[in-house]
């Protein structure tokens, strides 16, 4: 059975989880810990992209939208938490006041409650993905056409956010929060709490995704990636499976957005559009698509490189990202994890050859 190494995986998972949970908050400065928390939130989104792209073979270039829906839901809650403590001393969010609104729009009202905001951050992107999935997959839209449709969605969503300034804060997005669940967001221990929550959410998301890809459904996903049309003749309807995975993927992106916003302090259309959506795909490509650990690793590596780079040479970051993507595609099509596996297999082969050579030598003697 190919499951022998399973306990080793869990051991490694436990070790990494413990390091992130206990060692990182003790060892890192508040600034670095906050950065790491942000990367780990994004890693949850990368898991979702890996499910739909790496495992099922459908490239989504619109995950910024699902991330954005989650992020905006959380931002609406945080903004309403500000209450009368804002610039204009009214219950209305500041940008609404200067855009001439006098009353809170209906879809903002439920966001007074944290639980509703959190639930909609996860369910609204899932619902959105389900609808889009039903429309496209039922008419057998495949491959590059799916990518184009999702990219169009990203464009439309970011334009909509910019255009509807009185309701969404326009280009500036929603920012300037004060508190979450009554705790002061400027407090370092609150930020540490958010970091811990993110690590927990990532851990649960990882286990959940692993359960999906290890189930028979996971094998169906692999079959869809390899030969979708063949699968139909075995009695499977790929539509349901694709919609399911797309919805889960959207929900994970939404969760990521909701965790990202309170740690970063802002969400704006620049997190939603085409460029961020493509960047998200690059994280997974760099880490190694089709492996969950690759998605997480790639996200942390690329984003760490980004913050390192933009501290030193802010102007060159995009060129660097572009060349990174090209070189990964050309030289390491399976990403960092693929390269590591390749190296390990190479060493094993070498060791085996050495052993058999020694055995042969001993025999001769």
């Amino acid at each position, binding site marked *: *059975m*190919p499951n022998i190494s399973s306990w080793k995986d869990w051991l490694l998972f436990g070790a990494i989880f413990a390091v992130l949970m206990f060692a990182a908050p003790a060892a890192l400065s508040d600034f670095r810990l906050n950065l790491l928390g942000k990367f780990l939130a994004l890693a949850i989104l990368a898991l979702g992209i890996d499910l739909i792209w790496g495992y099922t073979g459908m490239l989504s270039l619109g995950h910024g939208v699902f991330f954005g829906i989650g992020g905006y839901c959380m931002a609406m809650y945080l903004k309403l938490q500000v209450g009368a403590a804002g610039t204009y001393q009214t219950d209305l969010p500041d940008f609404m006041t200067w855009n001439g609104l006098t009353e809170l729009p209906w879809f903002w009202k439920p966001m007074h409650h944290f639980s509703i905001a959190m639930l909609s951050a996860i369910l609204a992107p899932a619902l959105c993905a389900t609808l889009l999935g039903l429309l496209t997959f039922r008419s057998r839209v495949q491959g590059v056409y799916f990518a184009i449709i999702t990219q169009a969605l990203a464009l439309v969503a970011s334009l909509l956010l910019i255009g509807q300034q009185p309701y969404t804060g326009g280009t500036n997005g929603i920012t300037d929060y004060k508190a979450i669940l009554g705790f002061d967001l400027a407090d370092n221990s609150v930020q540490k709490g958010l970091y811990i929550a993110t690590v927990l959410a990532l851990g649960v998301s990882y286990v959940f995704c692993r359960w*999906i890809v290890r*189930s*028979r*459904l996971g*094998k*169906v996903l*692999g*079959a869809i*990636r*390899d*030969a979708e*049309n*063949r*699968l*139909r*003749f*075995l*009695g*499977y*309807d790929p539509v*349901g*499976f694709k919609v*399911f995975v797309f919805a889960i993927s959207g929900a994970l992106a939404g969760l990521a957005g909701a965790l990202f916003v309170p740690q970063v302090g802002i969400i704006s259309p620049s997190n939603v559009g085409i460029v961020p959506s493509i960047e998200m795909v690059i994280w997974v490509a760099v880490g190694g698509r089709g492996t969950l650990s690759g998605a997480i690793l790639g996200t942390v590596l690329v984003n760490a490189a980004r913050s390192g780079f933009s501290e030193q040479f802010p102007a060159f970051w995009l060129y660097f990202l572009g060349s990174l993507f090209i070189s990964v595609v050309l030289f390491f099509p399976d990403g960092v994890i693929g390269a590591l596996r390749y190296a390990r297999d190479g060493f094993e082969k070498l060791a085996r050859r050495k052993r058999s050579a020694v055995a042969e030598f001993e025999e001769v003697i």
Partner: protein
Amino acid sequence: MPTSIIYLEGVTVSFEGFKALNNLNFIMYPGELRVVIGPNGAGKTTLLDVISGKVRPTAGRVIFGELTDLSSLREHEMAKLGIGRKFQTPSVFKALSVFENLELACHQKSKGVFATLFSKRAEREKIFAVLDEIGLADKAWMKAGSLSHGEKQWLEIGMVVIQDPRLMLIDEPVAGMTGKETEKTGALLSSLAGKHSVLVIEHDMNFVRQIARTITVLHEGTVLCEGPLEKIQNDPRVAEIYLGREHKSHASH
């Protein structure tokens, strides 16, 4: 007369004016092993496409078993009804192991999203029984993509067998196989007939001689003649469509 397993009545399939099938009538009875032969372009694969739902007939009816009209069903629904298909070019799931390929084909009743998500262990015994039958038991954990051409053919036949369909559609099972493998395939398909109905398309005449009981000859999208091997071999029209071509190609040299 027993009820037919598959019955095509006046089926026409046209692709932008070209009639791949032309007013075709075809009938098979349960447990039968039928071989369909015919020159290239005779419509053999299109016949399987129509029966398995890949192509909709432009005109005519396709009746499966007890009056199930197939013309409005989709591929996966037909597969669930009990029609299994092996394709001309072996199409297995390359990134999955041999075992997993069979696992997906198995489990006839639970092929929905949540059934697969919460499914228990695979039916190992059933899968290994089929693996023994197709001679791939020692390669169960290999990726299907790294099998040889002949082994892929075997795997795909195994995937049809494990579905336990009422009607098996087998398109060119022995292409790329050695003489010995061909013989084994013939024996396997012969043993399946009776319990299942098997419709085989094949070019290899030695193979056809080995397994054939009733042969249907297709020509230009319609049935030219039908009957036991001797009758087909002695039919001057069959010689004409096969030999006639050869004469022509000789003449053109």
